[in-house]
């Protein structure tokens, strides 16, 4: 069961909901619906599943409906039609139709939220702001302060607990917002452009901190952003929205390599592929390489440079013009490699999910293509200069 699932969700702002829904079914645009019914289309036929532990980024220009559907998850926005299923205490709950008591339970325990303008209470200290959600639950002061101190330590604000929020910088205020959201121990975190109001350096730092925290706490995060770089950096899954509809949902690589339409293509055109593309997307697959028995020929027709593989297709040795070559191994998507080994090697074996940026760094150590292997160590493909260039220029045909 996904942690959050949108099923055919339509959101309409205005009194003529039925009229607007009819026009949505006819596939009319937002402008047409506004002209005919006076109602504003917030979202139309949104289908999206966010798995547990995933960061899903809703991405689009302002007015594309990304915040609108985020707010349907805790019913800050009412849903006109469709279901918003949230996993609440192991049970699926349709937030769009559940009763007030369930909704309140869900808001107190399962879903918490971080706001773009922080939404902190200026008459309260940092400590009392972080404890706000717990206080609404009716938790006693002693237990509350214990949890609050723990969360303040988590975001590095322990020494600021007694200050008022206006005494803090923007970045610190949003850390208070984060701590407040963490304090209720909700599994699902809604983040509505939380870093957009911050300057770029602070934004970058908070993004890193969020990723760092996420590695430890494994929340399900639904994140709204209008910044593609932010979306690509944070999102396990990215949903691109336009005019209230999701035009494409998938991984960063999916969106970069296979844009669903011209709108998405335009969006990703100027984006930096170095941290997004992986070996799998750019490599020349092993199956297309010429072979000579247990040897894979690396230099085409000449046939003087070969890779020896075992019966499982795992690289075991390198032959350079009859001489035995040295192989070095790089680890992880970032391609970590021992300096000494890198200096002495002739060829490098790396995992197939190697990032393009790492491939470029590794390529400095070897004249040969990088040998990409799958998670069982079997040769999957090659990544040479050509593949890197095509990746950089977004010219990959799949």
């Amino acid at each position, binding site marked *: 069961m996904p942690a959050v699932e949108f099923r055919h969700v339509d959101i309409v702002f205005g009194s003529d909901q039925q009229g607007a829904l009819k026009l949505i079914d006819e596939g009319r645009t937002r402008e047409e619906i506004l002209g005919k019914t006076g109602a504003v289309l917030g979202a139309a036929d949104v289908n999206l599943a966010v798995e547990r532990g995933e960061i899903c980024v809703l991405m689009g220009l302002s007015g594309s409906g990304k915040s609108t559907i985020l707010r349907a998850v805790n019913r*800050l926005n009412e849903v006109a039609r469709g279901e918003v299923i949230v996993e609440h205490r192991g049970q699926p709950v349709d937030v769009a139709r559940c009763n007030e008591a369930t909704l309140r339970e869900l808001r107190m325990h399962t879903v918490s*939220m971080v*706001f773009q303008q922080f*939404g902190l*209470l*200026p008459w309260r200290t940092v400590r009392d702001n972080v404890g*706000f959600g717990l206080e*609404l639950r009716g938790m006693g002061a002693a237990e509350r302060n214990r949890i609050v101190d723990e969360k303040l330590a988590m975001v590095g604000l322990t020494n600021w607990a007694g200050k008022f929020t206006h005494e803090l910088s923007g970045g610190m205020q949003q850390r208070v917002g984060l701590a407040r959201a963490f304090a209720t121990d909700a599994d699902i975190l809604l983040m509505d452009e939380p870093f957009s109001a911050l300057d770029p350096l602070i934004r970058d730092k908070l993004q890193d901190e969020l990723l760092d925290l996420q590695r430890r706490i494994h929340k399900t995060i639904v994140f709204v952003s209008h910044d593609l770089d932010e979306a690509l950096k944070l999102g396990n899954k990215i949903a691109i929205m336009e005019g209230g509809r999701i035009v494409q949902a998938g991984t960063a690589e999916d969106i970069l390599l296979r844009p669903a339409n011209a709108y998405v293509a335009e969006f990703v055109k100027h984006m930096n592929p170095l941290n997004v593309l992986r070996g799998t997307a750019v490599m020349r697959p092993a199956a297309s390489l010429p072979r000579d028995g247990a040897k894979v020929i690396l230099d085409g027709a000449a046939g003087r440079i070969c890779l020896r593989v075992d019966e499982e297709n795992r690289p075991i040795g390198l032959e350079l013009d009859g001489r035995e070559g040295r192989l070095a191994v790089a680890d992880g998507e970032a391609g970590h490699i021992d300096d000494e080994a890198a200096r002495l090697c002739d060829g490098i074996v790396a995992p197939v999910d190697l990032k393009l940026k790492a491939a470029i760094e590794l390529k400095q150590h070897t004249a040969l293509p990088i040998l990409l292997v799958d998670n069982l160590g079997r040769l999957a493909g090659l990544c040479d200069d050509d593949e890197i260039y095509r990746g950089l220029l977004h010219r990959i045909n799949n």
Partner: protein
Amino acid sequence: MFDWPIYDWLTAHKIPLGLWLKNAVDLLTEHGESVFDFISLVLGSLIAGLTSALLFVPPLLLIALFALGAWLVHRSVGLVVFIIGALLLVANLGYWQATMETLSLVLCATLVCVVVGVPVGIAAAHRPWLYAALHPVLDLMQTIPTFVYLIPTLVLFGLGVVPGLISTVIFAIPAPIRLTHLGISSVPANLYEAGKAFGATRTQMLWKIELPYALPTIMAGVTQCIMLSLSMVVIAALVGADGLGKPVVRALNSVNIAMGFEAGLAIVVLAIVLDRVCKRPHRRKG
């Protein structure tokens, strides 16, 4: 132009507006007498009780207590010195008892205004239709000449301090209502959303978001209310309320410039003291 028949017809058929109102008041006196007597009793004893409490304490001790209270709230030497000087002046002029009677009337009127006005302001902020309905009534309460409603309150509550209090409340209550409404309706949307997102009930929303946010504005309404109540002191004296209004009325009737000036000065001094004490200390910004 007076010979136009339509004009003759118009003047010949006077709408008995005044009569209707008089009948309504008569009806109220006839059937609601016990209710009004009860209200009169409660408010009358409230004011009398507070007045005797204030007069029970020796004046110098009371001045010291006021000064101490002001120091605890504001931590300002200047204010404390001013309060002591101002109250000693009033005592010196011989208006101590009248000042305490007026203070008691003003505090009771403010109490009634806050107890009634703040909830009404909150209700109006939550219900736009209620505010729309209330708006002309509040305008009416602030513009209609005081003497006009002084007459029916006299009839309903009898001579004394209570009709003075009621008239004062009618005149002063629009301030806390309006400012409470303003404060509550200017709560930013993102604070409402923060409250909702963490599961606040309507009651929690009121006590933990709306009222704390609106508090400075509501306090401004209370201060205004106190000032408006003070400005009604002379009117209240006309219907028999004790206090600083009495010597003013007497001075007016006997053309006594000295007495009028001194009593008027005592009112002004009391107004300034109350205003300075009620101002919120500048501790934080929004």
